[in-house]
Structures are given as C-alpha cells and as structure tokens.
C-alpha cells in the first residue's frame, strides 16, 4: 500500500468525507508534508472503490455542484488495520536498531 492510499484510508477511517475534506485532512495529518491533488486523489478513490475498500456514503449538491462523501468499508478497515500493523512492526525494528546503534556509539549519533 503506497503512502497516499494509506493516508486516504486513514482520513476516511475517522468519518465519511468528501474529496476536498480528504485533501485537507491528509495535509493536517502530515503537517503539510503531503498535499494530494485532484488527479491523484480521484485516481486513488476510483481504485479503492473498485477494490471494495471504500464506498459512497451520501451525496449532496453544494452551489449546484455534486459533493460525494466516501466512507471506509469493512474490507477497507481490515486492509488499513493490516497495513498499520505492518508499519508498526517495521517502525519498531527501526527504533530498536537505532537505539542499539546509539548505544554502540556511547549515546552520541554516529
């Protein structure tokens, strides 16, 4: 799972959101490091819908323009949970090795 996909699923795990709200939430989560653009976002949303990881929650019309809210499905929740476990395991390994490395160098960064 690539980072934008992980972040989109994380954004939708909180609550159903429309496209622009997903962009803003991802930007907030990553402190502005990742700011999705429309092309990337909708390519990912279309793929995730196709894979059954997200679905349409509701639609509304705002300023005569369609606004569609997406939510995580059960499969999406499982997929996000699995990816979260994987990332946590990798992060734990990285932390352990960095700790050992610092210990080898007497507490100073190498």
């Amino acid at each position: 799972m690539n980072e934008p996909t992980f972040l989109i699923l994380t954004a939708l795990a909180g609550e159903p959101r429309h496209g622009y709200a997903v962009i803003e939430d991802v930007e907030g989560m990553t402190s502005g490091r990742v700011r999705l653009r429309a092309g990337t976002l909708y390519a990912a949303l279309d793929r995730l819908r196709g894979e059954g990881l997200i679905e349409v929650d509701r639609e509304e019309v705002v300023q005569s323009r369609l606004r569609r809210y997406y939510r995580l499905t059960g499969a999406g929740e499982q997929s996000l949970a699995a990816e979260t476990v994987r990332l946590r395991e990798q992060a734990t390994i990285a932390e352990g090795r960095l700790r050992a490395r610092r210990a080898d160098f007497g507490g100073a960064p190498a």
Partner: protein
Amino acid sequence: MTEIRYRRLLAFYPRDFRREYGDEMLGVLMADKRPGPAQVVDVMRGAVAAHLRGLWTGESRAARVVWIFGTMLLFAVALRRVVGGLYALARHPEFFGPPVDVLSWTRLAAWGVALAAAFMGWRVLGAAGAAAGLTGEILAPLRSYVETPATLLYAYWLIVAAALVLVAGLIADRGVARPRHWQWVVAAGALLALQGVFAPPSRNGSYDLQWMLVLVAVVLAAVAIFRQEPRLRARLLCWAAPVIATVPVVEFGFGQFIVYNMGHPESTRMINPFQWALLVLVPVAVFVGASLLDRRGRVTAGA
C-alpha cells in the same frame, strides 16, 4: 484557472470516469489553493492512468478464464496425440514403429502441469508448464520444417494458442475459483482427446469424421464462451480472435506457398523474413484491433 479551462483538462479523462467524478473533481480543482503547471500535470497523469485502468479492467479476470479453458484444450490436444498413437499401435502393431515420440509425451506432461497449476491458481508453475508446452508446440513442426515448411503453418494456430495461454497465465487473477460453464470445455476436451480413438489417422479415410469431431469440440468450447456474462464474453472473444485469425492467414496468406511446395518437392521454398514477420505480428495486431473495437463498443454503449 477558469472553470472552462478545468473542464477542458477533464476532457482528457475517459467518458465514464468523467461522468462519475467530473463534477466532484471540478469542485476540488476550483478550490485548490495552488493552481499551476503541477496541478495540470497531476490531472493529465490521472487521465492517462484512468485510460490505462479502463483498458486493464476485467482483463485479469478474462485472462484467468483463458488460462483455464486454454490449458484444458491444449492438454486435450496433447492427450489426443498420445491416445491416438497408443490406440493405433494396439490395433495395427505391424504397421507402426514407436507410436508416440518423446516430444508428444513431453507436451502432454507440460500441459498437464499447466492445467493443474491453472486450476490451483499457481502462476509460476503455470508459466513454467505453459512455456514448456509452447516450446514443444514450436519444436514439433520445426523438426520437419526443412523438408516440409507447411508443417509449421499447420501448427501455427496451436503455437498462437499456446502463446496466448502463457500470457494469460501471467496476468490472470489469483485464486482457485473455477470459471462458470467450464463443463462445456471439459466435454470439448474429452471429444478432442477421444478423437484419436474414434477417428485415428489411418488408411481408411476417416478424416471427415476427424474434422466433424473437431467441429463439435469447437462448438462446445464456443458454448462455454457465449454462456459467460456479456462483458467477460466480449473479452474472451478478443483473446480468441488471434487464434481464429490464423485460419485465414494460412489459407489466404500461404495457400499458394503450400500448393507450390506440394508440387515442387525438388525446390522447396522456405518461409521468408516478411512472412515470418507476418506470422508474428498478425496475432498481436488482431488482439489489439479486437480490444480497441471492444472498448469502442463499450464507450458507445455507455454514451
């Protein structure tokens, strides 16, 4: 950027994608605080990806059906050679030497492995089996190519079918799910395999019966395809098109070549580089052409 310019950008997306997300995307693009070249590049990249995804959608599912149906039929053809040879030996031991050569047994084993792997959804083993089967299908006519170049043309459909099955296996859906109506292909395969018993190539002129059995087997396989859902059926026909196209290619492209060689055994003509290119490129062109027609039909139907 103005709304009109954004709409022009969105026109690069496939029609069905635009219909589904166009309005939403327009809203997001208009709200983007950083319009500029990067935004345009992102939209264009998304449009290209959507087109590629549209081409790919359903292909892996169709490929899985091609993989299973194809290996079933190729295994049946390989089995027919062995069964026919053994049956002929049993009936006329005085007329035949070794009834089944090593290459026939090898092809049977290769397609057997490919068939088992296809049903189990094991891609690597399936690819190995299909690659070995394809190699066998090429080597068999090549043994007599110098004396009779036409043997390669007679085996052309089999080589194309084997190549398609190999490709299909590489991109097929994973899993062990069997395609619907596979029993029709089993019936077709059984008929092909038993063809060697019912109508062995012999001196009694039973070729008419042979072709009749082949025709019935083709009809049974066609039933399996035509009973699939419309979308899958269209893709299966695209995959079958290169094999079907081998018939007119050999008939009209090489008819004179075969007739000349039959009449002039003393100065046999070989397949020239242009003809080799034709044999390689036609199946590819037919597949691409059929896929484009299928896609155009889908877009038109969805308009």
